[in-house]
């Protein structure tokens, strides 16, 4: 684990100062701390002890600057600060805070290094630390990549410890006693003679003390809040309808709008005719959205929806693939040298072993379709532009980019813009995008002085996503006895990073590691082993979908390993164990085997399937149990073992695993976005459904802590779900699922 090294009040926000060099962008730029954004707006009597702790007469506020989209990050991050500050997290106010480069995410790029996560050598670790430099340089405040806890674990505890130290020094000065005679307890400093002073009373004094450089963190053994279930701070409001999502924002005299944008994604709108819409009830205005579509502004969202249907649009067409068949043809066509993107693994001599094996080589091809994020809360944002100021209320995973996009579109300088980050009714990567923010600002700009809430219809949301990329994988494998002696892996898909960064106006400088994520970097040691990624030229927009490349590649790889095990007449778990030396990874596989009684008799028509995928540094093993009924496949149980290195809140981790498994199963069973005439065909939950109560299995979880460091758990439970299901279906029926979604080939009940 990296250490923060010498922490000073001025520099602790920048993360690790242990980095030397900073060759990429220069040490000076990197070492300059970002200013504390709280210092700009302090009211009388308020003190911002760090960018994460604000204290005034009314109490303590902790800034948790990551998007709360269901993963419990608001509670977890605040608890990190509260633990060290010594105050019950239930007794503080918690705010998302303003967009600020000070809240950049240092950990999000860490796994972009060319070292697999099992490699904890000093070279690999140094490379990961270097990834903090570009993260800092861009100042990207992002929630994604299962990185929030990883990023926050030291720096937010250090923020709490630093603030507590300042309060102790303030109390020491106030009481004129030595600091080491003072202690703290739940928001108060206590003197030796039992005098208690609330933090709130010490705040202004604490602001002026000079901090020592050697603030220390508590050992784990002294934790009072971390390491056990913490009641989520957002739970009561989310169960009483009082939580404010973006779509719930209310402003005085607000109007309601919706948008219609070219369903040929990325193409322009030549013209639109409002004759049948402009005079409809409730309609206040119909406005162009740059050159991509139009917005209807009305007195009620439903009036806006109705009128939007009546606008006649003349849409331009796109130049890229117009049908699902063409998409997959483009993936197949990219399996060549010209489109080769990466070859991060090339062990032994794959060609020689496969050549020698000849016809005994096992060839397999697998496919995954485009998928929509389909968050429960459709895209929306609320904005008002008035007197050279802009306010935007939105649930976003990237507030700093939201701020710069709002500035670009409105023409207002960033210092006069406020982005208010609300709860997200689901993210899954969709709210990394800027489109819903941009359109709301475009509307607000044309209706100066009026607040407007812009809500997309479900149909607009479903057909204007940036999708999980389609992909094709080709494997060639050779087995000898019960061993795999050679494995050649080729995968072809469009690049998430090229597409996503392109929309932010940045070009991707090198290969996209997400194309081969969960293929090249798995814990398997195979003597002759090669993984090659091919990049399909950019077409339909693609983006991060919970677990990114691992969401399809985990299915490909773990289906192939299962096929090889069966061909070799080997037990799928024993074969995997024979390929793995990394002990924490072995442990999750052995744990899940125990949980599911793997190896004992399986009832008639039942089948068990296993899969093991490491993503975001977390090895997760899952076993799915299905029964083949006369009406179709029923998923009964899912057993999950995951190693997070260190569990801050096991109950919340369990929730994330359950969520991730159901997300992965839903995609595998029924998720598919198809293209026809250049447009997405699925429009709503009737033709793009997800798992529901009657299909949801019982999910048994086990959390292990053998890994080398703390890891995030929002995504890693997703990738093994699809292959474990495919392997279970094979065990129960003898049918091999090589294409998602499986309901194209088999029924589910």
């Amino acid at each position, binding site marked *: 684990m990296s250490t923060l090294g010498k922490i000073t009040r001025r520099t602790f926000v920048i993360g690790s100062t242990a980095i030397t060099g900073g060759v990429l962008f220069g040490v000076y730029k990197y070492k300059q701390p970002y200013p504390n954004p709280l210092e700009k707006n302090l009211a009388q009597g308020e003190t911002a002890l760090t960018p994460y702790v604000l204290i005034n007469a009314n109490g303590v506020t902790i800034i948790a600057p990551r998007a709360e989209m269901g993963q419990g990050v608001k509670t977890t991050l605040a608890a990190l600060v509260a633990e060290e500050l010594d105050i019950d997290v239930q007794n503080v106010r918690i705010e998302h805070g303003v967009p600020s480069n000070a809240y950049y995410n240092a950990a999000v790029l860490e796994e972009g290094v060319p070292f697999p996560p099992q490699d904890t050598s000093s070279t690999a670790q140094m490379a990961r630390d270097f990834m903090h430099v570009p993260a800092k340089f861009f100042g990207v405040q992002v929630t994604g990549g299962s990185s929030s806890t990883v990023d926050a674990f030291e720096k937010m505890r250090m923020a709490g410890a630093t603030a507590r130290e300042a309060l102790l020094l303030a109390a020491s000065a106030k009481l004129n006693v030595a600091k080491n005679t003072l202690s703290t307890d739940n928001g108060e400093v206590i003197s030796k003679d039992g005098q208690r002073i609330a933090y709130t009373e010490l705040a202004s004094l604490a602001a002026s003390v000079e901090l020592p450089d050697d603030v220390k963190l508590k050992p784990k053994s002294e934790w009072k809040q971390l390491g056990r279930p913490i009641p989520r701070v957002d739970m009561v409001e989310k*169960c009483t309808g009082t939580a404010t999502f973006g779509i719930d924002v209310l402003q005085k005299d607000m109007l309601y709008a919706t948008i219609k944008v070219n369903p040929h994604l990325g193409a322009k709108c030549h013209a639109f005719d409002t004759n049948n819409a402009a005079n409809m009830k409730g309609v206040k205005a119909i406005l162009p959205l740059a050159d991509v579509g139009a917005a209807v502004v009305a007195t009620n969202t439903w009036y806006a929806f109705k009128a939007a249907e009546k606008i006649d649009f003349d849409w331009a067409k796109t130049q890229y693939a117009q049908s699902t068949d063409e998409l997959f043809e483009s993936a197949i066509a990219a399996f060549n040298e010209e489109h080769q993107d990466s070859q991060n693994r090339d062990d032994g001599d794959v060609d020689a072993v496969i050549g020698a094996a000849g016809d005994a080589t096992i060839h397999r091809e697998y496919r995954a379709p485009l998928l929509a994020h389909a968050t*429960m*809360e459709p895209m929306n944002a609320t904005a008002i532009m008035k007197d050279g100021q802009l306010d935007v209320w939105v649930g976003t995973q990237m507030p700093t980019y939201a701020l710069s996009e709002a500035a670009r579109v409105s023409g207002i300088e960033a210092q006069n813009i406020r982005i208010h980050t609300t709860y997200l009714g689901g993210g*899954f990567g969709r709210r990394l995008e800027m489109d819903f923010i941009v359109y709301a600002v475009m509307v607000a700009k044309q209706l100066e002085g009026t607040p407007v809430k812009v809500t997309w219809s479900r149909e607009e949301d479903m057909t204007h996503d940036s999708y999980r990329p389609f992909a094709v994988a080709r494997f060639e494998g050779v087995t000898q006895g019960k061993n795999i002696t050679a494995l050649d892996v080729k995968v072809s898909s469009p690049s998430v990073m090229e597409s996503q960064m392109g929309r932010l106006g940045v070009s991707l400088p090198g290969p996209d590691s997400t194309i081969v994520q969960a293929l090249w970097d798995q814990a398997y040691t195979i003597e002759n082993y090669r993984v090659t990624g091919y990049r399909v030229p950019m077409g339909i927009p693609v983006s991060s979908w919970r677990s990114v490349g691992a969401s399809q590649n985990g299915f490909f790889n773990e289906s192939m390993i299962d096929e090889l095990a069966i061909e070799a007449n080997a037990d799928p778990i024993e074969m995997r164990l024979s390929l793995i030396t990394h002990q924490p990874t072995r442990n999750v596989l052995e744990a899940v085997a125990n949980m599911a009684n793997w190896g004992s008799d399986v009832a008639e028509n039942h089948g068990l399937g296993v899969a093991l995928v490491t993503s975001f540094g977390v090895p997760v093993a899952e076993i799915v149990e299905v029964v083949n009924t006369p009406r179709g496949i029923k998923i009964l149980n899912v057993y999950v073992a995951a190693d997070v290195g260190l569990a801050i809140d096991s109950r919340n981790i369990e929730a994330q695993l359950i*969520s991730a498994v159901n*997300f992965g199963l839903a995609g595998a069973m029924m998720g598919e976005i198809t293209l026809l005439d250049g447009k997405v065909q699925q429009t709503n939950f009737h033709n793009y459904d997800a798992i529901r*109560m009657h299909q*949801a299995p019982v999910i048994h979880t086990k959390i292990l802590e053998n890994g080398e460091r703390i890891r995030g758990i929002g995504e890693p439970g997703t990738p093994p779900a699809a292959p474990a299901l495919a392997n279970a279906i094979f065990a129960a029926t003898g049918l091999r699922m090589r294409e998602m979604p499986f309901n194209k080939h088999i029924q589910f009940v």
Partner: protein
Amino acid sequence: MQINVNGTQHEVDVDEEMPLLWVLRDELNITGPKFGCGIAMCGACTVHINGQPARSCSMPVGQVSGLITTIEGLGTPDAMHEVQAAWVEHQVAQCGYCQPGQIMSAAALLQMNPNPDDEAIDHAMSANLCRCGTYPRIRAAIKAAAQNIREKSA
């Protein structure tokens, strides 16, 4: 026209075809019921009309007759309904967006069936989609709430 929501009578001047959801959300600022699909496929908009669960996104306000209860009328943070309390106890919500609808469906189920088995829960809850996949905890919370309600009325 007049509608009664959570015990309060409201006069609203809207198109009779307007779905109840949009009257609640945009006319009366009652934002607990959520917009998810607009075609009664996700259940996020579920409210009670005379105690029966209804998908307010697909119910024209002109056809509504009876007392409307939304999540706000079921219970409040300081005085939660048994179902809401069980939801908190079991830490059900993740993103939380679908949960007002889930809770309203569950409360209606327990009103009709004080001791639902798994099949009854499947039947009553399958119209409510949750993309976070919180179903196991929803099931556990429904059973806990049912038990608490039975014990209280015993």
